[in-house]
């Protein structure tokens, strides 16, 4: 089961099945101590919690940059998808995929939060012109 961990040096929060050996922020070794989800929520609340479309866009561009895929160059399509992603966040709490429906099983639905692990989608995996199910991310041309 996933739990929360806090770096006792710089306060980074990690959510995972085990604590990272080295803190990626302050590089201290064995710095993570387990905390409750409530403490994690309270410690992270003062940081910025909302993200504008521009910020989300920048975040996924940075994310794609180091990977083998890119954000689709079809601007109209991306705008439509952003409309859906942000509407879903507002109406249903998380940035759920606009081209799939949540099941209402929270853990199952975490797989639908954008960006999802689309490299396993049959629309992407092993395909030269692969794309995520919605077409937000596409494989970068070689």
């Amino acid at each position: 089961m996933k739990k929360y961990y806090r770096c006792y040096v710089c306060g980074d929060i990690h959510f995972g099945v085990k604590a990272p050996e080295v803190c990626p922020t302050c590089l201290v070794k064995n710095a993570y101590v387990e905390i409750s989800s409530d403490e994690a929520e309270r410690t992270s609340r003062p940081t910025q919690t909302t993200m504008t479309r521009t910020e989300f866009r920048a975040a996924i561009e940075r994310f794609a940059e180091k990977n083998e895929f890119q954000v689709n160059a079809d601007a109209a399509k991306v705008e439509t998808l952003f409309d859906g992603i942000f509407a879903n966040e507002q109406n249903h709490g998380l940035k759920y995929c606009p081209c799939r429906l949540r099941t209402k099983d929270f853990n199952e639905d975490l797989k639908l939060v954008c960006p999802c692990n689309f490299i396993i989608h049959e629309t992407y995996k092993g395909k030269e012109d692969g794309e995520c199910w919605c077409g937000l991310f596409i494989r970068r041309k070689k």
Partner: protein
Amino acid sequence: MLVRAFHKEEKVSKLIMFHARECPHCRAMMPHVDRLEKEEKVKFERLEVWHDEKNADLMRSYRPVIAPKCGGQLRTPTFFCPETSDVLCGEVPYDQLKDWALKQG
């Protein structure tokens, strides 16, 4: 006197299209659905699932039938025939949608 028009009632199969307002595949399929309804004896009930919880619940209720045929998930668009439990999902060419729809009759 009761006058009855005796014409053979044309069978129109009831099909559902589960779609989402901001789903590009759904947008791409809409003109195909319009054309199919115009050219064939087919009628789709178009149910939007991200902005209408009743429709979403209906789609979820068919999850055991739909999901195994759509990569284990509830994807949009999903074309579904409640009578035959047959499913077609995703963006497909017009002819594929037509063949699928006519097969349900």
